[in-house]
């Protein structure tokens, strides 16, 4: 267990009598985990019920999470616990970080965070790096079916998804160096709550821009490269959804198949009782069919974890990428707008200058009235246009920046996508292979048993 390395944390154990008494009853509890985080809030850790998390294995091996043990930063999430407070009940997860970077003062950190903290983290990352593809969080309660918020399965599912989320951030060259991320991983509870409440200026700027995101169709120059990416992502998302639908349909049919098979193999057994000579053969066949059934059962059970959820989660990830691309478009829109306005003002100015040199064109009595306003206008324009110019330049810069960062992040994401999809497909295939192997061996068993019998029968 990690207890040896967390001796530093163990020494900080505060003596809260209620918790100590609860602990005495449950020997398999990891003392360090309970004492390290939960008492700081002064919240009561609920004593484990029958359906509790104490039986969940702590993640020992990082390879479970497909993480590289030799990298300079590795984070794992495990050991969920329920907390009871006066106003609410919630679940926290233990986050263990092992890091070898300069910015981090220590080598190892253990903190406890709840789901809302993750939401805060993601929000901050999006604000600080608007054109990075920030991975999506697992859904809130309503998205994961009718599972009870505190049910073991739901919590486990969420924990797994949070691990994926964190590992994606860890592997991201830019996001993993984010200040807020560091705070998230290292700060103890009171510091963390303090940090959360801070508000920075940058929030407001990004917010205003994002509201005008609906008019990307008005873009003058559609960016070829990003458009291609968008179409590609659409196709990918569609194909993945189709695959998921097909898989779930097949799964349903298989479940029906299993029902039929279950009534199939007893028939062999019944028949075997009335046939003295054929009894063995019939029994073997019945057994083989039964083994087939259980192998299929395993296949059906594994569907959600191997295919259903991973594909759906990845499709959500694709959606995030699409959103990021859309954000970039708002920048382009702003830039083009400002450019357009600049050109308009330029042409206005030119027009005014032209008309001021031809006073004969003003034939009406309003000419006197117009003259001073013309000059006024020119003056105003004289000030306004350089301002606009600056704005255009600034927009152009930020657009270029956005393009660049998005481009590089997309490259990074493509690699990630490849790995992720490959893993999903390989898992799927391996499960199928397992099933077919089990079936083949069951039937081979039968033929092996029958072969010597057959020879005997023939010689009769």
């Amino acid at each position, binding site marked *: 267990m990690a207890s040896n390395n967390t001796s530093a944390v163990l020494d900080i154990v505060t003596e809260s009598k209620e918790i100590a008494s609860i602990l005495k009853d449950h020997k398999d509890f990891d003392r360090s985990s309970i004492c390290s985080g939960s008492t700081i809030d002064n919240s009561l850790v609920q004593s484990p019920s029958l359906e509790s998390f104490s039986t969940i294995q702590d993640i020992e091996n990082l390879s479970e999470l497909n993480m590289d043990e030799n990298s300079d930063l590795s984070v794992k999430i495990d050991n969920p616990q329920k907390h009871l407070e006066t106003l609410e009940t919630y679940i926290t997860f233990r986050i263990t970080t092992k890091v070898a970077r300069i910015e981090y003062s220590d080598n190892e950190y253990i903190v406890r965070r709840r789901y809302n903290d993750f939401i805060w983290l993601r929000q901050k990352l999006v604000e600080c790096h608007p054109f990075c593809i920030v991975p999506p969080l697992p859904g809130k309660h309503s998205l994961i079916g009718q599972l009870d918020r505190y049910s073991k399965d739901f919590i486990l599912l969420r924990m797994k998804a949070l691990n994926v989320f964190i590992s994606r951030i860890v592997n991201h060259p830019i996001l993993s160096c984010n200040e807020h991320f560091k705070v998230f991983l290292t700060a103890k509870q009171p510091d963390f709550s303090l940090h959360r409440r801070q508000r920075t200026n940058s929030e407001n700027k990004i917010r205003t821009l994002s509201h005008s995101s609906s008019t990307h169709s008005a873009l003058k120059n559609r960016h070829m490269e990003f458009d291609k990416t968008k179409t*590609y992502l659409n196709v*990918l998302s569609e194909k993945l959804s*189709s695959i998921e639908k*097909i898989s779930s349909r097949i799964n349903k049919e298989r479940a029906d198949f299993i029902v039929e098979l279950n009534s*199939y193999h007893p*028939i062999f057994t019944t028949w075997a009782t009335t046939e003295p000579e054929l009894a063995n053969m019939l029994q073997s066949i019945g057994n083989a069919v039964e083994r087939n059934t259980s192998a299929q059962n395993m296949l059906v059970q594994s569907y959600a974890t191997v295919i259903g959820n991973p594909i759906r989660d990845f499709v959500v990830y694709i959606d995030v990428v699409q959103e990021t691309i859309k954000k970039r478009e708002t920048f382009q829109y702003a830039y083009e707008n400002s450019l357009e306005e600049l050109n308009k003002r330029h042409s206005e100015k030119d027009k005014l200058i032209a008309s001021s040199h031809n006073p004969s064109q003003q034939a009406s009595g309003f000419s006197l009235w117009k003259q001073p306003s013309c000059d006024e206008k020119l003056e105003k324009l004289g000030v306004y246009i350089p301002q606009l110019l600056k704005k255009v330049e600034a927009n152009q810069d930020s657009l270029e920046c956005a393009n660049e960062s998005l481009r590089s992040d997309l490259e990074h994401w493509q690699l990630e996508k490849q790995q992720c999809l490959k893993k999903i497909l390989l898992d799927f295939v391996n499960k199928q292979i397992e099933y077919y192997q089990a079936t083949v061996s069951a039937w081979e068993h039968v033929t092996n048993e029958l072969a010597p019998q057959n020879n005997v029968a023939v010689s009769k």
Partner: protein
Amino acid sequence: MENKSTKAKKNIDKNKQQKEDTILNHIEISVAESEKRANGTLNLREFYTVYLIETKLTDSEFQNRFPKVTTVWRRYTEFEQLRGYLEVTYPYIVLPPLPEKRVMFGWQKISSDTFDPNFVDRRRAGLENFLLRLASHPVLSWDKHFVEFLQQEDDWRESYKSNGYLQLVENKLKALNLSMRLRNSDPRFDAIKDYSHIFQTNLNNLLKARSRVAEKQYNVHKLHANYGRVFSEWSAVEKDMGDALQKTGHYLDSLASSIDAGLEDEELLADQLKEYLFFANSLQNVCKNYEYHQLQLEGAEDNVASKNVERNKAQQGKTGLMSRLFGAVDTDEVRELKVNLLDQQIQEGAAAVNTSKTSLK
């Protein structure tokens, strides 16, 4: 049951030594083709299928008894008629069954249309099996009408009509289908009857379940074909993974179509199981025949007993009905003779049943 099987083995060995002759040793029979024909006028056409029966003489010694080569077209109903005749003539023999009249245990892929080419072909094979089994039976194969069936198309039809077999068969069927209560029934026949019922139930369940399982299996495999399309479309937009995805799509397509061959083979196996299912029926028929005879026997015994009582009563002095008594006594004696004769016949029949039963096993 075990005694029977050892006895059966002995009999089979005896047969091998005796080499009981069947016509299959001398001629070859095959049901080679099928053809769709129509009766009636253009508007009211009734379709039916005929099957070609070919026989070839393989043993030149029998040249005088059998023609060298014959071809005869028969339809399913004629096969049924032949079998009906055999049932009436040899009530003690377990007859081989005909292939099913209507599609039984059908499912999605097996259409219930009796003109479906697959069904016609499977029926053709079943009919060939039927004829071969008949021809390899030491008693049945020498039946005149059977040989006529194989070799003379129209003559057989004539002789069938002229002998009124249709009527005979129908009457027999009616008689056998009455429920019969026996006082003393042979425990061997009871055992056979019970076994055949159990056997029938088991096979029925098996075949039903098998066809349901086959259907589900078929569905699961066919659904995989949908993958093929999606993976191909996906591979078109992927640079690096494109090839692999393409291959995956192809493989899943072939998975979907691989199930067809397997299920077709399974269908043929199911046919063989069905044959034994119908054999159970034949077994039951023989038992019924036995019961029928036994019933007759018991009825006759009852008759004899009651007549005896009458006779005794008469002899004990009911002088007022002398003429009747005389008549009764006479008829009585004649009856007794008849009853004895019947008794003998029944016992002969029962003995024949027993020997042919064991020889068939």
